[in-house]
């Protein structure tokens, strides 16, 4: 968190030295844009809070350590798409899933969809990209995640 504020502060001071009017305009525009998008952020947070509750760790482990790798991969992609979590929770969780016997292919589907596909963040994404582009982006991301998972399966010798 510190580097980004240090950077912001340095740039802000530099901007102030160069042109006070322009800097005031920049800060005003920042405030305006923030106010404009704050409601979408709030609804995203509500969705995220509910999604995090709906997908607890125990359910995850149960679903992802299945006999059928393919089925588990599909589950993993679905769960990864609907849930949102910060990296510092997600990757340790992936480590736990590995430890509980989930194949690399399944962990890959989970982590990549987690990062790229956002059902809970969709309201926010829609207000920036529009519904159609947001849908297309998420669809393409899901496809990419599945391809990455299958190739990961081959590389780690989990798929014949």
């Amino acid at each position, binding site marked *: 968190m510190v580097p980004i504020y240090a950077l912001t502060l340095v740039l802000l001071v530099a901007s102030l030295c160069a042109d006070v009017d322009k800097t005031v305009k920049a800060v005003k525009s920042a405030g305006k844009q923030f106010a404009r998008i704050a409601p979408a952020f709030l609804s995203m947070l509500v969705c995220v809070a509910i999604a995090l509750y709906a997908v607890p760790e125990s359910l995850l482990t149960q679903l992802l350590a299945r006999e059928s790798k393919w089925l588990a991969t599909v589950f993993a992609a679905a769960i990864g798409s609907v849930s949102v979590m910060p990296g510092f929770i997600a990757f340790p969780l992936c480590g736990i899933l590995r430890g509980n016997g989930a194949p690399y292919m399944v962990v890959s589907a989970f982590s990549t969809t987690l990062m790229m596909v*956002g059902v809970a963040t969709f309201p926010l994404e829609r207000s920036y990209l529009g519904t159609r582009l947001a849908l297309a982006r998420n669809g*393409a991301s899901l496809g990419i995640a599945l391809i990455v998972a299958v190739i990961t399966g081959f590389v780690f010798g989990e798929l014949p």
Partner: protein
Amino acid sequence: MSYLRQNRLALGLAAGFLLFVGASRLGGFAPGRDMGGHFVSFLRDMLRVLPAVFILIGLFDVWVKRQTVEKHLGHGAGLVSYLWALLLAGTAVGGLHVAFPIAYALHVKGARLGVVLAYLAGAAICRVPMTLFEASFLGWRFTVVRFAVSLPLVVLTSALLGAWFERRGYRLPALEDAHGAP
């Protein structure tokens, strides 16, 4: 007043949710309490980053010339523009939700849609600190495979989607009138 009216759906949802959480705390309803806890912790995380991000966007708006962005990330900037987008994304903070306003600002300044999509994908999957974290839990081989497979696919699908939407005259939603240029 018009602000409240325009956003009544989102604000109503948030207000309803907070009422539910408050009632859950009073009534000792565990699921509601847990959701409230997640909500607060996420809100805190976001409020920590977002002010800086929006001020950076504001400065970017005011200082960076449209021609500069157009030249490097716009139409006719070629494949290198995807490299720029991914490098820029590699240094991004926060997840996708922080990347959306930045991507939008880039597009308003003349970055073409494909490059904007590549930036978003990059912010999702190849942020540097996150990658180090991933590798330490799942091993470098896993991370290398993920990068090697996903990056070409990201550039390909971003370029295709961007071209497809632009050819059909797609416009991003108009967000604010603070910008000089539409």
